[in-house]
């Protein structure tokens, strides 16, 4: 129990910080970040303890919903996610310590930061529907205010509005889900829910609702459109929290409902998350590849990763429904590890983007370039993040990707034909997503950090304060460590997997203690340390040997460029030009993108023009059209505001006569 008190104290500290910050102004606001960092560390430690001990702590407070009270519970699942959350919060807070105290602190951000952190933690330990949705909505609310922090910019206002409306839709869906789970008698406590089995149809509806509710927060296509608007609109360290961490809370919600509360799954429950996930993964990256705004690219890639995680969860459901617990363990481990890894490298990347924004004041890729010279440390950290998110060994992104592929490869062993046919499609789509991710981040890094500066701001950028470098460095270190020690993480995951799918990954059966094993060692092994060692040895020996052989040092000279070097940086490949081949190949399919070249006749001085049209069907169908429909309907109905009194009397009369007629016909 003492842990819970510690937890409570830490959360209380965050709340107090929020309140104090609400009444302070100016540089004094900076106190928020050390405090949040401390609180996050404490909570993280408590969570870690709970995770490793595998036990669970529970408490009931006499507040909240009448006759039910406020149930709090810290089990392995919430502990694991707690570690994810507080890791992100810690990084963001450390980054925040580096903010410029005279300019960058505003009462619109700092009071909400700890509140946001506290709300996210509260969601994880909530153990009844009311507490869950309460803190869930609080989380949305806090982040909404943070998105609207730059309130004079109409774009961020629009983003904030769309965001909160989508969040409300999600919450409504979750309300339904919990309503169905709790049943008409209103047993909202999770313990009660676990014992109450809804009818199959209801269960299906609940799953759908949960998918909508958590999907809308996680950015599952087609509920995604708010995400690339809202996440970038917030201050960068908050964007890091929203993208790296808040989306994980959404995942937590789905796992909690689908694997814990809803009871034993039917095999076809797997299909919706898998299908949506795959679509999300691929489309998310296609959006990302075509976008030119650094932070928005990152946001889109968040969508992609959420999609990947949902695929893994879907597979886990399928395996579990068929009693193949090893498979479920692999898929679940893939999902959870990806949650952890993504929280690391996405936070890292967003902090990096923040650093770039801070240094250059621009987010448009085509205005950056050559930053690797001006801000070397940030560039190095960002590189790690970029390679990690592209799922390249030996970094952490690949560990979860590998496990996921193992799960997909095992999918044909499932008895259902639908899943057979699905499996190659899933595999191919995920591979496509992985390749696109690599392309996307080569593009981002290549245009933002490599090459020559494309703008004055980029040309005289400067590296960020130490605190911010520490935040990024720490995350980069974690990305590398997580890549090498995937097996250790698998050990740490064992309790969660045990609780969710009743078995973990095989541990310590591999050739070395660090080999990550799917199913059994004879089947699939990935041993990052050994490979890393090999690569290190190989590269070092090569280095030595080559330098021994080649006596002459290298010399600096102008770029060769096929003999026609052009000094102007405009001749470089831009982000848009990098994306052109991919747009030509995939864009025509996904976005009906058309490009038209208007070439002036010979002798004409006008420059040739290339214009590209890209249509976002999803936006048109799922957002623009309904939005217009609502406005149209409202303006039609609005006539009723301007009728004459006599007409209002007619309405009354009609209502009366209608009801009377009703009474007359009914016996």
């Amino acid at each position, binding site marked *: 129990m003492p842990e819970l008190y510690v937890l409570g104290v830490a959360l209380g500290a965050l709340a107090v910080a929020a309140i104090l910050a609400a009444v302070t102004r100016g540089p004094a606001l900076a106190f928020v970040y050390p405090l949040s960092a401390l609180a996050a560390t404490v909570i993280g430690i408590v969570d870690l303890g709970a995770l490793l001990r595998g036990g669970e702590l529970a408490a009931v407070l006499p507040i909240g919903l009448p006759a039910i009270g406020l149930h709090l519970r810290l089990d392995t699942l919430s502990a694991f996610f707690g570690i994810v959350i507080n890791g992100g919060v810690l990084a963001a807070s450390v980054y925040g310590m580096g903010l410029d105290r005279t300019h960058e602190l505003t009462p619109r951000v700092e009071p909400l930061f700890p509140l946001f952190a506290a709300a996210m933690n509260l969601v994880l330990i909530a153990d009844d529907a009311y507490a869950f949705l309460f803190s869930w909505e609080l989380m949305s609310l806090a982040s909404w205010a943070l998105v609207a922090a730059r309130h004079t910019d109409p774009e961020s206002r629009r983003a904030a509005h769309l965001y909160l409306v989508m969040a409300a839709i999600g919450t409504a869906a979750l309300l339904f889900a919990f309503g169905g789970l709790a049943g008409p008698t209103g047993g909202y406590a999770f313990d009660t829910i676990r014992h109450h089995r809804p009818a199959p149809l209801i269960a299906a509806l609940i799953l759908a609702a949960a998918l909508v509710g958590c999907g809308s927060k996680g950015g599952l296509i087609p509920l995604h459109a708010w995400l690339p608007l809202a996440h970038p609109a917030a201050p960068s360290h908050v964007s890091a929290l929203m993208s790296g961490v808040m989306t994980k809370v959404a995942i937590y919600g789905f796992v909690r409902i689908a694997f814990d509360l809803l009871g034993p799954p039917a095999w076809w429950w797997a299909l919706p998350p898998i299908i949506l996930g795959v679509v999300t993964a691929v489309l998310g990256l296609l959006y990302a590849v075509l976008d030119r705004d650094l932070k928005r690219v990152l946001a889109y890639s968040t969508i992609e990763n959420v999609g990947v995680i949902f695929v893994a969860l879907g597979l886990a459901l399928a395996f579990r429904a068929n009693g193949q617990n090893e498979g479920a363990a692999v898929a679940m481990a893939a999902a959870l590890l990806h949650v952890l890894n993504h929280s690391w490298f996405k936070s890292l990347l967003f902090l990096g983007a923040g650093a770039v924004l801070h240094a250059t004041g621009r987010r448009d890729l085509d205005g950056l370039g050559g930053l690797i010279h001006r801000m070397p440390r940030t560039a190095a950290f960002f590189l790690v993040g970029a390679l990690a998110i592209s799922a390249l060994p030996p970094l952490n992104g690949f560990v979860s990707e590998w496990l996921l592929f193992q799960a997909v490869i095992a999918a044909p062993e499932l008895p259902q034909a639908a899943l*057979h046919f699905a499996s*190659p499609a899933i*595999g191919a789509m995920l591979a496509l997503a992985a390749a696109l991710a690599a392309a996307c981040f080569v*593009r981002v890094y*290549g245009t933002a950090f490599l090459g*020559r500066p494309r703008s004055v701001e980029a040309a005289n950028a400067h590296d960020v304060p130490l605190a911010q470098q520490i935040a990024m460095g720490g995350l980069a270190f974690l990305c590398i460590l997580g890549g090498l020690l995937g097996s250790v993480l698998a050990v740490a995951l064992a309790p969660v997997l045990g609780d969710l799918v009743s078995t973990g990954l095989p541990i310590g059966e591999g050739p070395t203690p660090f080999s990550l094993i799917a199913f059994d060692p004879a*089947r699939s092994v990935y041993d990052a340390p050994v490979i890393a060692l090999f690569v290190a040895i190989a590269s070092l020996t090569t280095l030595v040997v080559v330098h021994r052989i080649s006596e002459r040092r290298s010399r600096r000279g102008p770029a060769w*460029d096929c003999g026609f070097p052009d000094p102007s940086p405009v001749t470089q490949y831009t982000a848009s030009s990098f994306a052109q081949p*991919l747009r030509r*190949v995939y864009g025509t399919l996904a976005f009906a993108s058309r490009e038209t070249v208007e070439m002036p006749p010979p002798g004409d001085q006008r420059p040739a023009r290339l214009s590209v049209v890209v249509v976002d069907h999803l936006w048109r169908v799922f957002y623009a059209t309904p939005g217009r429909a609502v406005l149209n309907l409202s303006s039609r109905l609005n006539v009723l505001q301007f009728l004459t009194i006599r007409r209002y009397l007619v309405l009354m009369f009609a209502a009366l006569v209608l009801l009377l007629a009703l009474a007359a016909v009914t016996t």
Partner: protein
Amino acid sequence: MTADFFVQLLAQGAQMTFVLLIAPLAVGVVRRVKALLMRRQGAPLLQAYLDLAKLVRKESVIAESASWLFRSAPYLIFALTWVAAALVPSFASGLMFNWAADVVALVALLGAARALLALAGMDVGTSFGGIGSSREMMIATLAEPAMMLIVLTLAIAAGTTRLAGVADFFIAEPFAVRVSMALSLIALVIVALAENARIPVDNPVTHLELTMVHEAMVLEYSGRHLALIEAASHLKLVLYLSLLVCLFAPFGMAPADAGLAGWLIGLAAWIIKILACAALLGVWEVSIAKMRVFRLPDFLGVAFVFGFLAILLAFLTRGVFA
């Protein structure tokens, strides 16, 4: 035990050296065959070695706008490719570290090398580097799904993703799931062509700017860095060739518990197979023309379709539809 351990270590080391040594030769064979078929004298068979030696000794000129990434990339690329090549069972399956990376990891290692190369291509900030990188990544997005399907087929057939395991499986029953293996063979060949920047996807000898992919990326490299890049590409070729032979023509390969004799036989068989494939590649390259970049989706689409068919057939033959 310890003795055995050292033998094993030795064998692994041997494989690393062999792949390194044979790579330029294979390339030489390809060029030689092409030359002969074109009725040209052609460079001597060992020219590739000489080129590398020359390049290493030359000083390397580095563009002003290049960063540390540009300089360090070649070493990493080389190392990654080399390690990947060393992990593919060549003359013997079940070598000491075969297990360290399965097919998925192997593909990912090559992916890492490719990403680094693409980044290096963008580092100097020239138009050609950009062209090369963007096209390279685009081709990768087309190739990797097909590759994944091939992997899936193998896994369904052999029940494992460890290359050694797959190899053992095919050594044991060389004619398992024939049809789907044939299909995935075609798919893998196509993928290999794409990955190694061979005709019709890319032309290794051209320097005609607008058709370049691989060459455009490495345009700025010179001296030892260029040497490493070249060597890496040679290694990659060998890697794919030995992947092909290990999966589709495993005969002669020494099983896990083979002794020295078995290894020698395996080695001989492997070298012969590699060189034969190289010769075939040469023949193939003279017999068809380079494609326009935006025809590639169709070309690699073929690989995708064959890969998919392979899986469906594998389902049938394995009778997974219970």
